C-alpha cells in the first residue's frame, strides 16, 4: 500500500510539476495566434521528453549516478564542458524567467509590482533550497501545481466549438494573417518548452537524491509515461482555453493576466484563485528545479560533493552555485526585461542548446559499461535518434527564424 501511494504521489507530482513558465507562455501564445494548429508540436514534445527522461531515469537508477556525471566520464571534459556551458546558461535564464513568473503571479494577486516581489521570492527560494527536504519541495509544489486543472474545467465551461478546434488541429499551418515563418518559430518555442534541458538533469539528479535503484525502474517509467503526458494535458488546456477565448478575437497574448483570463471568464473569482495558485506553484516549483539543476550540473562536472541529501556545509560549493544562480536570475530581471519576453528568449536559446543536452544522454544510455543489459533497446534507440534529428533541426532553425520573424512578430 505504501508503494502504491508512493507511485501515485510520484505521478501527481510529475503532472503538477510538468508545467513551467515556458509551457504557460508558449501554449497561451500559440493558442491565441494559431488556435490549436500547434497541437501536434506539443504531442511531439511530450513524447520526446518522455523518451529522454526514461533514458536518464534508467541510467541513474541502474548506475546509481546522475547523467551529467557519466557524460563527463564517458565523453570527456571538453564535450561535457560544452554541454555544461549551454545547459547552465539556459538554466540560469530559465531561472530568471521562473522568478519573474512567480513575481507576476503575486502581482496579479496583490497588485504590488512584480519587480518588488522578485527579491523577496529569491530569498524565500534560497531559504527553501537551503533548509527544506528534497521530497517536501518536490511534493508540495508538484501537488499544488495541479491547481492548473482549472484550465481543463474552464475549457469545458467556455463552450468551445469542437468542429472549429478539430479543423485547426487537423490542418496544421498558419491561419489568415500569419505566415509560415512565425508558425515554425512558435513551433520551435513550443517544442523547446516541453524539452527544456533542466528537466532531464533535475529528473536524473532527483533520482539520486531519492536513492533510486534498478528496483525503482518501474516507478520511474510510470512517472514518465503516465505523469508527463498528463502534465502535457495541462499545458494543452492552456492552449485550448487561449484558442477558445483569444483566437476568435484575432488577438495575441503577451502577459500573464491574459493567460488567466479564460479561467476568470469561465469560473469567476474561484477560477482566478485556482489559476493564480497554479501559476505560483508551477513557476516557484520550476524555479527550485532550475536553481538545483544549475548546482547539480556544475557540481557534477567538477566532481564536487552535491545534493540536498548532504548537509549544506558538506556541499558548500554546490549551495554556492545554487545561490549564485538565484542572484544571477534576479540580476537579469532587475534589468527590467519583461519576464514574458525573457521566457520567449529563453525558449529559443534552449532550442539551440538542446542537442548539447540530449546527444550525450543517448550515448550514455547505450553504454553497457554503465547499464549492462539495461541499455537502450531498438525502440528507444529509434525514437532517440529520430528525436535527435528533430532537435538538431530545431536548434539550427531557431536563431534564423528568431531574426527573420522578429521574435515571432511577423
Amino acid at each position, binding site marked *: 500500500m505504501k508503494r502504491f501511494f508512493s507511485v501515485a504521489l510520484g505521478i501527481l507530482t510529475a503532472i503538477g510539476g510538468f508545467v513551467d513558465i515556458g509551457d504557460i507562455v508558449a501554449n497561451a501564445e500559440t493558442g491565441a495566434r494559431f488556435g490549436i494548429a500547434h497541437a501536434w508540436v506539443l504531442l511531439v514534445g511530450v513524447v520526446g521528453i518522455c523518451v529522454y527522461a526514461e533514458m536518464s531515469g534508467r541510467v541513474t537508477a541502474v548506475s546509481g549516478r546522475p547523467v551529467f556525471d557519466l557524460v563527463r566520464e564517458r565523453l570527456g571534459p571538453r564535450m561535457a564542458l560544452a554541454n555544461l556551458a549551454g545547459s547552465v546558461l539556459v538554466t540560469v535564464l530559465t531561472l530568471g524567467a521562473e522568478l519573474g513568473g512567480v513575481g507576476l503571479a503575486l*502581482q*496579479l494577486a496583490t*497588485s504590488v509590482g512584480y519587480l518588488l516581489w522578485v527579491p523577496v521570492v529569491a530569498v524565500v527560494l534560497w531559504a527553501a533550497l537551503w533548509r527544506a527536504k528534497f521530497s517536501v519541495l518536490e511534493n508540495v509544489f508538484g501537488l499544488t501545481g495541479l491547481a492548473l486543472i482549472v484550465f481543463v474545467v474552464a475549457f469545458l465551461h467556455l463552450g468551445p466549438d469542437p468542429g472549429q478546434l478539430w479543423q485547426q488541429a487537423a490542418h496544421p499551418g498558419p491561419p489568415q*494573417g500569419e505566415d509560415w515563418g512565425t508558425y515554425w518559430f512558435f513551433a520551435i518555442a513550443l517544442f523547446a518548452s516541453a524539452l527544456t534541458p533542466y528537466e532531464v538533469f533535475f529528473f536524473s539528479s532527483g533520482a539520486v537524491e531519492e536513492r533510486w535503484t534498478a528496483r525503482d525502474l518501474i516507478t520511474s517509467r510510470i512517472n514518465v509515461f503516465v505523469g508527463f503526458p498528463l502534465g502535457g494535458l495541462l499545458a494543452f488546456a492552456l492552449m485550448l482555453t487561449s484558442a477558445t477565448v483569444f483566437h476568435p478575437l484575432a488577438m495575441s497574448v503577451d502577459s500573464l*493576466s491574459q493567460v488567466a*483570463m479564460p479561467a476568470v*471568464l469561465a469560473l*469567476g473569482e474561484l477560477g*482566478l484563485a485556482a489559476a493564480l495558485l497554479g501559476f505560483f506553484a508551477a513557476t516557484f516549483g520550476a524555479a527550485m528545479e532550475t536553481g538545483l539543476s544549475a548546482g547539480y550540473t556544475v557540481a557534477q562536472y567538477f566532481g564536487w560533493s552535491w545534493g540536498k541529501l548532504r548537509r549544506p556545509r558538506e556541499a558548500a560549493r554546490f549551495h554556492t552555485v545554487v545561490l549564485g544562480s538565484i542572484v544571477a536570475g534576479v540580476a537579469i530581471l532587475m534589468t527590467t526585461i519583461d519576464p514574458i519576453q525573457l521566457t520567449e528568449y529563453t525558449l529559443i536559446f534552449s532550442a539551440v542548446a538542446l542537442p548539447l543536452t540530449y546527444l550525450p544522454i543517448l550515448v550514455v544510455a547505450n553504454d553497457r559499461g554503465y547499464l549492462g543489459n539495461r541499455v537502450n533497446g531498438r525502440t528507444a534507440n529509434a525514437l532517440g535518434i529520430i528525436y535527435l534529428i528533430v532537435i538538431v533541426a530545431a536548434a539550427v532553425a531557431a536563431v534564423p527564424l528568431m531574426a527573420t520573424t522578429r521574435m515571432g512578430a511577423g
Partner: protein
Amino acid sequence: MRTSRKLAVVAAVAVVFWAGLAVQLSRADDFRAYHRTVVQVAQGAHDAAQTAKLTAQIKAGHRATAAFTQAAFDDAAKALAGAQKQFAGQAPPGERGARLRDRLAPLLARETTAFGDVLRAGDDAALRAGARELDDVARQLNDFITGVLTGGN
C-alpha cells in the same frame, strides 16, 4: 587548426555579423519598413483594446478581484503605450506612408479616450459602455490591419 587561427576565424565572423547588424540598423527608412511598423502598431493597439475590453467586462460582471483587474488594465495600458511610442518614433517616408499614418492615428486617439473612460468608469453601466466602445475600436483596427495586409496600403 591552431588556437590562434580559430580565434581569428571567430573574430572575423563576429566582425562580419556586427557590420551586418550596423548596416541593417542604419539603413534609411523605406515604405516597406514603415508599412511593417504601422501593422505592428495596429496589432499592438488591437490587442490592448481587446484586453481592456475583456477586463472591463470581467470587472462589470464582478468576476475577479480588484487587484487582478488593476493588473490586467495596467498590462493593456502598457501595450497601448508601447504601440503609441513605436508609432510616434517613426516618421512616414512619403505620401503613401503619410496616408497610412492618417488612417491609423484617429483610431489610436479614439482607443486612448475609450481606455481612459473605462479606467475612470464609476459604475457597471459605464464599464459596459466603455467595453462596447473598445470592442468597436478593436474591430476597426482589425479591419485596418486586414486591409493594409491584403491591399498593401
